[in-house]
């Protein structure tokens, strides 16, 4: 119990004191996961739309693949990305392994199926008659798609929250492709693993508090945006 309490006090001291290393790790986490999320949303939502609204050969198979991808363990994603980026791998010449870019790539692969799968499901919930009505209102293809996204905006924000939660909290992929190198590729989750392993519990607790605050703060903001329009009559 003592270890927990003293660790907590030390963690608060680090946080309030604005420990530069803590700040750096936090910003790196935000940068890597934020960029991965952005790419996943920009690419994934239109792909979700394509799967939801167009019918083509192999569509069912693709949807199954997406749904499987939603449950892909980060370590497996990390392994795959590492295999592709390693010196002797197909993209070895890019020298991306053990860089922040490798972590971004891995997290895009983790977030993408979540974004595609959840936006696809949300779009399929819309009544077919609504799409017909939107077309009858004079919407072109892009206008119709954007209007449908507006209709599912609540679900879309939930999608963003789910994808952000998945990437900010994963440790398997970032450690495998980033190497958890202190001062270079270490993010919050990897740092917690390392600090715990070497017995610096106060640092681990401080990092954990920051991670929880990040998750809480981000979701609070998104929930606020999501529910803003709901209360109006």
């Amino acid at each position, binding site marked *: 119990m003592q270890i927990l309490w003293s660790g907590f006090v030390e963690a608060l001291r680090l946080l309030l004191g604005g420990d530069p290393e803590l700040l750096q790790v936090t910003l790196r986490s935000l940068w890597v996961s934020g960029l991965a999320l952005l790419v996943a949303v920009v690419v994934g939502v239109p792909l979700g739309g394509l799967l939801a609204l167009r019918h083509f050969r192999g569509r069912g198979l693709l949807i199954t693949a997406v749904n499987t991808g939603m449950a892909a363990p980060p370590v497996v994603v990390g392994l795959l990305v590492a295999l592709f980026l390693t010196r002797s791998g197909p993209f070895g010449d890019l020298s991306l392994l053990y860089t922040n870019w490798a972590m971004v790539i891995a997290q895009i692969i983790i977030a993408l199926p979540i974004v595609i799968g959840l936006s696809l499901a949300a779009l399929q919930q819309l009544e077919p008659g609504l799409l*017909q009505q*939107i*077309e*009858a209102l004079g*919407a072109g293809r892009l206008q119709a798609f954007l*209007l449908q996204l*507006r209709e599912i905006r609540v679900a879309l924000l939930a999608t963003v929250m789910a994808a952000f939660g998945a990437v900010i909290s994963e440790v398997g992929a970032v450690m495998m492709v980033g190497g958890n190198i202190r001062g270079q590729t270490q993010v919050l989750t990897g740092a917690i693993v390392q600090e715990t392993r070497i017995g610096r519990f106060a640092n681990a607790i401080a990092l954990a508090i920051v991670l929880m605050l990040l998750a809480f703060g981000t979701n609070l903001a998104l929930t606020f945006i999501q529910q803003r329009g709901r209360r109006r*009559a």
Partner: protein
Amino acid sequence: MSASASSARPLLEARDLRVVRAGRVLASADHLLLDGGRVHVLLGANGSGKSTLLRALNGLEAAEGELSFGGRPVATSADRLALRRRTAAVFQKAYLLDTTVQGNVESGLRLRGVGRVAARRRADEALELLDIAGLRNRRPAHLSGGEAQRVSIARALAVDPEVLFFDEPTSSLDPPTRAALVGDLSSIFARSQMAVVWVTHDRDEALAVGDVVSFLEDGRVTQSGRAADVFSHPATASFAAFLGLDAYLEGTVVNGEDGLTRLFTPGGLELVCGDAEDGPAVACLPPEDVVLFTRPPDAHSASLRNLLPGHVREVRPSGRLLLVSVAAGEMEVAALVTRAAIEDLGLAAGSEVIAAFKASAVHPIPRHQWQPR
């Protein structure tokens, strides 16, 4: 809404239009003309293809054959989008967007590139026209079915469409709400130059709003014409049945020297009927035109030229009225009467009655035009 089509040229014209899916013709029309200022009803039972035909005419569905709008062919998907941007559609369910009523009514205008200020002004006009200006800040979840449909209609009228497509807009509304809406729409149409295509399975609604009626069976338009003509001269057995004209007689029309037209049936029945050419014919008798008596009517009912004695076979409800089937010799005559009349006459199955109707109630159709079921 302002006038837009004044030329004699039809606004929308379809020739040999067919919607084909997986080798099956879902809807077709040999020739259909839509003129500005007219309400064209597509009437038919459920599954008759009328909604599919409406979607093809509105450019929501690709179709084979020729479709032209304002004299220009509608062939590509870009043409269909251009057509949709000059027309509007309202469906059975009011598909409202998840925004305010005002936002919904503006949405069609905004999608067509109308600026914010102009869109707001035109939406306001449409809201006033449909008498729902008070609902402007509500969201769809807080509207009744009738209010939601009015919003959907206001949204359609706001874009000032050249053709307005209505796909059973009142069929999910309760009777008073429906009557109020149909009344309001009729007066809006009367003041407007837009062409209206109104799909319905309700013959009373078709009569109430339609200038021209096209009847669809099995995906095909089988009869088209002025509403009153089409309703009094059903050309197919299924249309006659759809109109509730189950009883029809086959016989021969003879125009006599006394100036009367008569239908002689093979069973020896002789009915004075409406104008028709000599020759083999089929005649329908609308039940609302038949009056029942228990004694021969007085002289003042002399215009009731046909008097058929018989007995009541069955009495069954038909809406707020009762439908009485009378077996009169070889003929089965149906009469629509009020409950009070049934009580006054003391009618029940087996009662002796006289079925009386005017000559004009019998509408002979030349045999060669008639399509049996």
